[in-house]
Structures are given as C-alpha cells and as structure tokens.
C-alpha cells in the first residue's frame, strides 16, 4: 500500500498548478465564459504540447501510458482553477471509449489528432427520459446493408458545441431499459442528419441537445462490439465519475481555503469572524468534509481497474461522499462569505455552481447510494 506520488507525478502536479496560477486566473476564465466559443483553443493546444491530452493513452497508441492517478492529478488541479476546456469530454470520456473499445482504424485516425489538440470530441449518453440510467436508451440504430441509421435525441451533451466527433449510445436490439442491445457509434458532428441546439450551462460550460435524424454510419464506426456497448460505457462513465470526484476535491480545497482566509480577515463586532467558535466549528466541519472527500476520490481512482462489481461500489461510494461534501462546502462557503458570497464578482459562487453540477453529473447522491446498496 502506498499513498505517495512518484517523482514524475510530482512534476505533473507542478506543471498543471503553474498553468492554473500563471495562465488561468479568475479574470481570464470570466473572459472565456463570455466568449463566443466558450473555451480557448490556444490553451487547448498548449495542453497538447504539454502532453496532458496524451496522458491516459497507451504508448502503443501514441500516448504516455499514464494511470488513473495522472488523470486524477490533472482533474484535481483543473478543479482548483475551474477549467472549462473540454478535457473531461474529449480525453476522459471519448478518449476512454476509444482507448478501451476503439478499433484499429478509429485509434489510428482519431487518437493522434485528439492527443495533438486538433480534434475535440463529446459523448452523448443521456436522453430526455433516461435520467442517470445509462441503459435507458431509446435512440435507435437500424441496420442497413452497409451499416446503420441513427434516430433519436441525446440531451445535455457536455462540450457538444465544440466537438468535431461525437460518440453516442443507440439501441440495436432489446427493450428501452435493457443493458443488452446497446451499441456505441462514433459520428462526425457535421454529418448529415445531425442537428444541435447549443447553450451555456449554469457553471460556465457549454452543452448541446443533439438530434439524430437518420444519420448514416458504417460498420467501422461502431465502438466496441455491437449490442455490448453498455459494459464499455459503464466502465468509462465510472472513470469519468472518478475524474470529476478529483475535480470536485480541487474545487472544494480552493473554496475552503478562500473561506478560511475570509474568516481570518473579515472583522465584525470588533474582531475577525474566525474568532467566533460557531464559525470555527463550521470551518472544521468543512475541513472534515473535504478530507473525507479527498480520501474517497483517491480510493475510487485507485480502484478503477478492480473487478466491475468492486469498481462500481467504489465509484458510487466516492460519488456519494463527494456529493454530500460538495453541497455542504459549497453552501457554507457562500453562507460564511455573507452578502459577498452571493455576488458574481467573487469566485466563491462560481465554485459553488460547478460543485453543484458535479453533484448531479453521472448520477446524483441518491442514484449512487442506490447503486452502492444494490
């Protein structure tokens, strides 16, 4: 058992932390949020040059052969800076599906560009009526002579507006909520029959409703095996869940530190409010919530390669803890900042909003409690 970072991992931490400090200040981020694209392509290129986009891919596929720990490091640092660039969608989600299920052709054509930062991707796993159940798929894929035709709607596809490639789940057989009969397809975002409604999310990201109206795909566009997409998607969503747990830990850390600093300096009734025991104990409760969340994020990331049953329980347990901690720390950070916590000009509200969305993303606390106890 070992809870220490390797020397290489420490270098990665330094490099991502330096980027957040030097290149991703609060004002920079606010400008990105207001921009047309909703992300900075030049910064994304920089991620590519620094090798961050190649981290989880095997050396055979041209990547750096990193483990879940490297992804955890990057996501935790991104959480501290509230990075909105499409790392989760492109590298963790789409990259994860291709890494574990992509055929040779897909890996050869898509991964090099993805790692270089010239290709962005997003994944459609949710539908208007599916809620958090990955097996609840009504989008259909009908067999044709040379491939398939997709029909349906994918909702809240994160980073959809900027994606060049989309990977979507569709039903090739079975009933609406059967795990068997789900197939994953990779399609061009600009393919005939694809239409998008783009919008901002409350936490500063961009997303799309994606309508698939007779989109023709070939046999070679299937990711993984026909009818067996669920296990692959379930695994990669677990990886992404562990990744956003780490992101939340970074955001919670920053939020707790900011609140602590505020309590030390804000004077009321003739003394810093941090002298009041009721404030001190609240900050201790936040600190404990943060430490417990961090422990669970590490645990989940280190168990991603365990047998599926153990992996699911580990990830769900972590998501429950992160969901509770994130809500508590977010709400209390706003509370202890008083009126200032309510403003758009202070970063606190922005962290709170991101944490609130993470609480829901890939299944909220109730969903994961049920999944854990199942």
């Amino acid at each position: 058992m070992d809870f220490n970072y390797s020397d290489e991992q420490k270098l990665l931490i330094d490099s991502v932390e330096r980027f957040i400090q030097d290149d991703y200040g609060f004002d920079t981020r606010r400008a990105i949020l207001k921009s047309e694209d909703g992300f900075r392509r030049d910064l994304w290129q920089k991620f590519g040059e620094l090798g961050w986009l190649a981290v989880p891919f095997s050396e055979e596929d041209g990547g750096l052969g990193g483990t879940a720990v490297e992804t955890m490091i990057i996501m935790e640092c991104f959480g501290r800076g509230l990075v909105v660039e499409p790392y989760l969608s492109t590298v963790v989600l789409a990259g994860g599906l291709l890494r574990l299920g992509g055929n040779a052709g897909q890996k050869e054509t898509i991964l090099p560009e993805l790692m270089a930062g010239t290709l962005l991707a997003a994944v459609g796993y949710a539908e208007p009526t599916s809620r958090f159940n990955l097996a609840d798929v009504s989008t259909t894929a009908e067999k044709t002579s040379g491939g398939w035709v997709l029909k349906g709607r994918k909702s809240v596809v994160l980073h959809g507006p900027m994606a060049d490639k989309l990977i979507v789940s569709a039903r090739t057989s079975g009933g609406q909520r059967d795990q068997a009969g789900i197939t994953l397809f990779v399609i061009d975002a600009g393919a005939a029959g694809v239409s998008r409604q783009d919008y901002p999310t409350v936490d500063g990201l961009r997303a799309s409703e994606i309508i698939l109206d007779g989109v023709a795909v070939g046999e070679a566009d299937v990711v993984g095996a026909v009818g067996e997409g669920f296990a692959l998607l379930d695994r990669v969503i677990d990886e992404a869940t562990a990744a956003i747990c780490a992101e939340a830990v970074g955001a919670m850390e920053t939020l707790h530190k900011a609140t602590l600093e505020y309590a030390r300096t804000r004077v009321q009734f003739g003394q810093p409010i941090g002298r009041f025991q009721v404030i001190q104990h609240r900050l201790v409760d936040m600190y404990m919530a943060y430490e417990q969340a961090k422990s669970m994020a590490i645990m989940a990331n280190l168990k991603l390669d365990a047998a599926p049953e153990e992996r699911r329980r580990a990830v769900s347990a972590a998501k429950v803890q992160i969901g509770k901690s994130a809500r508590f720390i977010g709400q209390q950070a706003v509370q202890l900042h008083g009126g200032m916590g309510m403003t758009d000009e202070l970063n606190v509200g922005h962290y709170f909003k991101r944490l609130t969305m993470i609480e829901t993303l890939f299944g909220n606390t109730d969903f994961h409690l049920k999944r854990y106890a199942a």
Partner: protein
Amino acid sequence: MDLSFSAEDLAFQREVRSFIAENYPADIKARFDAGLEPHKEDFVRWQKILFEKGWVAPAWPKEYGGTGWTATQKYIFQEELGAANTPGIIPFGLSMVGPVIYTFATEEQKKRFLPGILSSDVWWCQGYSEPGSGSDLASLKTKAVRQGDKYIVNGSKTWTTMAQWADWIFCLVRTDSTVKQQEGISFLLFDMKSPGVTVRPIITLDGGHEVNECFFDNVEVPVENLIGQEGQGWTYAKFLLGHERSGIAAVARSKRGIAKLKQIANTELADGGPLIEDPDYRRKLAELEIDLTALEYTELRTLARESQGKGPGPESSILKIKGTEIQQAITELAVEAAGYYAFAFNRRAMDGANEPIIGPAATAFAAPSYFNMRKTSIYGGSNEIQKNIIAKMVLGL
C-alpha cells in the same frame, strides 16, 4: 499510489490471521461474540498472549518492546484483530502512560514501569478528569504538596475508567497554584493500594460499571514517582492525548459492527420481508458504510504521513470525531433494527448471569450498547474540544 498489498504484506496477513485463529481463547471469543460484559481476566489473558508473541505494542519503538512494523503492517494487524473481535487493547498502560514513560521518564523509571505495562501484570488507570474539570482539564484542583522525599496528594478524580481493576494510576496533580494554570501541573504515578485512596463506582445509564470516582486523602507518593519535571505535566498530558487519538478511529471494529448489522437486518422482519430490503433502512446502512470507508481511507492517509515521520498531528482529531460518530451510529441502527425487543433490559444476562435472553440474541444488548456508546463523543477530549483543536492547530484560527 497503490492500494494493493505486497507479497510480504499478504504473507504477514496470513501469519496474523492464523496466529489469532490458533491462539484466541474460545471462551473469551464466545463472550465477546455474544456481546457480554467482559471480565478483567479476558483482557489480561489476551494481552499476555500477544505479549508472548511480541505483538502487544506495535506503536512502541522497537528498543522498548515495539514490533518495528511498517504502517501497512500495523494496519493489517488492527484489521485482523477487529475482524476476529478480540478484546480491545486496554489503552491506559500500552497507549497512554507507556509512551509518556519511554519518552519523558528516567532510565530507572523506564526499567521499573515498562515491563509491567508490556506484560499486562500491572493494570493502569487514568487520573485526569475531576468533578470541576472536564473539557477544561487544566483547571484541575487535585493537589500534591512536597514534603521531603514525598508528595502528599489530596483531591478527587472522576470518570476513572476501570479504576476498580487498576493497580496503578497516572495522575495529573497541581504542584503550584501561584503560576499560570497549565504551568503548575505535574504528572505523578502511584499505587492504587496506597493508604488514603478510595474508589467509588459510578453506574452509567446503560446499567454498567466502567467508570469510578477516586478520592485521595493524604496519599503519600514518593518523589521518584514524578515523571519528567515538576510543573511540566501539562506537556506530557497533551502528548498523551495525541497518542490516545491515533487509535481511536476504530475502523476495523466498526467494520465488524456493520457486518453484524447486516446480519441482523437480514433476519429481522418488516412487513413480511427482511429489514435489509426496507429501502429506508437499507439507505441508512449504505450511508454509514460509505462514511466508514471514507474514514478508513482518511486514516490510511494519516498513517502514510506518519510513516514519513509527519504526525500523528492534530489532524488526527478528525479520526476521533468521525470514528466516534460512526461507532455511535452503528449502535443507533442496531436499536432501530431491534424494534420492540430493544425494550427488554437483559442486564443480568449481559453481566454473565445464567438467565435466558428476552428477544433475539443478536440484538439482546442493542439498547445498553447504544446508551453506553454516547460516551465516545465525550471522552478523550469531547468532539467539540477536538474541533477547537483542529480550528487552532490545523486551520490556524
């Protein structure tokens, strides 16, 4: 970062497991598994078995009788003891006064006291709290006045756990009332059979007798029983509390508690089905288990820091707070699972009388345990005091 055990660790785990299987006395095991009130002899006999093996003091430095184990090995050892439901190591000698003695005492005192602690031939109790000094421990009033080569001790201590079984007490006493509170305290050891020592039982709300009042009426204590410097007792007292906290998470025991809860919830019926299938109960159980997993990994991270020579720091107060909250929650859920039969007060059976138990055996003592475990958030520095410690020492407030 890696959660897996090395081949050596796995071999160690097998060694510990088979040692316990072969050496844990069946009669003690039966009593502990049934949840009966333990006897002094149960603890002493088990600690002696561990002592013979050289495993009774894993936290001690090797030169004083420790094991020299890695943090992972200590973790495995605790896990195995917890899983087997062996008697907990009584902390007063091995976890409290022992470390104070090997850290601050003279060579002569070490030679005199450490062997009896390791062999469990001497049972210690802790003279800290007083009727007027609970969380505000430094306000203590028990007085020790130097007369030649003796201290004359007068005053009283309370909540003294298992004092009725104790041979010796380590006691915080006031040796100087003219200086700042914390600077007038000294750390004295004395024999509980000394003339002038009286022990009176305190029966707690669960009907049990664990704690006592101790009265000292002109008790004569030789000066060679003073640990360290006169007036420095507060430093040693705080050092000791730090050690007390590090084992207090009780993760392995809580794991066993949750496993037992699951068994109970599988047999208790609600609406014709097992209670475990009741979604509300199931949800509470799942939340508790997740809370415990988080605590387990927080403890492992603390151990990892410790093995790099950092700690146990004040962040170990988290382990005390979360550990006790979870221990209490387990007993709450046991009472809930017991339903009406939680009413039956099987006190005499719990104390070992040959009496039939009313209701299912698995929940026979659920309510007394629940009431008893309320102590955990009060003792060892109440959880509110732990939060003060974190606020001051970790958050810098």
